[in-house]
């Protein structure tokens, strides 16, 4: 069980919370302690809206054991509206229907359950934007 790490990362996983450099405004996700642009160590939490487009993707068929229940699943590189590219699983979509450039939105889903007795980890995934 990895309870302390799971607890420590909850804002990142639940709220898509990264960092904003207080010197130059550069955004980062996952959060960086040192700005990759200006090397400043001064930053504040920044919550991303959770919308973006798919830059590229791959489909995972042979999964690590803890992700068995979800296979096959798609992992994408997603360009967030704020200009940061992140990695996340896609959900609510058949792998054959995934297309580069598709509009996506963040949802909270199970990432995995730690065996039959451990905690259930929740966090962000992305799905095609709900059609209205």
């Amino acid at each position, binding site marked *: 069980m990895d309870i302390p790490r799971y607890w420590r990362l909850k804002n990142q996983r*639940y709220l898509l919370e990264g960092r904003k450099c207080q010197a130059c405004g550069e955004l980062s996700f996952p959060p960086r302690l040192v700005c990759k642009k200006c090397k400043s160590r001064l930053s504040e939490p920044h919550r991303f809206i959770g919308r973006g487009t798919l830059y590229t993707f791959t489909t995972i068929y042979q999964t690590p054991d803890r992700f068995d*229940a979800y296979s096959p699943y798609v992992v994408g590189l997603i360009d967030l509206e704020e200009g940061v590219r992140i990695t996340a699983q896609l959900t609510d979509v058949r792998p054959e229907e995934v297309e580069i450039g598709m509009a996506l939105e963040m*949802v909270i*889903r*199970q990432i995995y359950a730690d065996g039959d007795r451990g905690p*259930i980890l*929740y966090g962000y995934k992305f799905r095609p934007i709900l059609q209205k």
Partner: protein
Amino acid sequence: MQRIMKPLRETGIVGYGAYVPAFRLPAREISELWRAGQDIDYLPVPQKSVPGPDEDTVTMSIEAARNAIARAGLAPEKIRAVWVGSESHPYAVKPSGTIVAQVLNIVPEVLAADMEFACKAGTEAMQAAIAFVGSKMGDYALAIGMDTAQGRPGDALEYTAAAGGAAYLMGPAEEALAIIEGSYSYVTDTPDFFRRAYQKYPEHGNRFTGDPAYFDHLTKSITNLLEGLNLKPKDFSAAVFHQPNTKFPKRLAKMMGFSAEQIKQGLLSPRIGNTYAGASVVGLTNVLDKAQPGDRILIASFGSGAGSDAFSIRVTDKIRSAVNKAPLTEDYLNREIFIKYGTYARWRKKITLK
């Protein structure tokens, strides 16, 4: 008859939100596998919603509650209670409510707990939230009814046991899109359906679930509510009943004097099955999506074990601006990805390997 339940401070719904998963299992898939299609002409529902492999009552509650908060336009930290009613909480011990409250940024100055009363847990949470706001213990309380219901493979309930539900944010009447006019609850010890500890699937009393359970409790709660408020079925523009299948709520409507037109918008079981604690409350979201100011709506739940909560609500002009601030229930209903029984059996962990 007791007096109608009504809080001291007038209370109402300031935001509501629905959630239904994308996946659907046609009932014929179950019929063909377990009955060789023998019952194909009289299936209880044509199809049901199925949660994806990464969905549970917590993830679904989060999305419904997010929609409710968006409709209210409220800062999440103003919410002082989060109650999740379900019979499919992912943990046996650890509240779903704390996870929902954390993800939605409602923590930490908040009450959070889970409720269980078979299919009545959602309206039980609503009653508690109305009382909480109505007594001025807090200004806003979130009540959720949500389920990923379990059905034993081959059992009659497998046709209908579905996933979905809704969240209601209760607050002061002057901010409400619908005001609670009054409610009535009716409960007895009736063991029509239950699941013992550590059991994967529930048991039910077959036809015993009808007259002494569903119909008896619902007719009592509704009759008392109408009598107490001096209202008649014709005074309501819509009525939503617990919907374990298509037949029961239609028969109940006829018994109580409600027309097919009055129950039409709230009857979602033909499209998504029985969402248990979510069933009546998600039906109400579809009615609210289409409601006009001044409409009076009846909602009556039923939960096995057994009991019923009936509410009369009156829509205000705030409904107009609230509806389009979040996805409509129809948006979720129209999102249909059909799956085979094999996929359903795998996702719902019906295939046991050890």
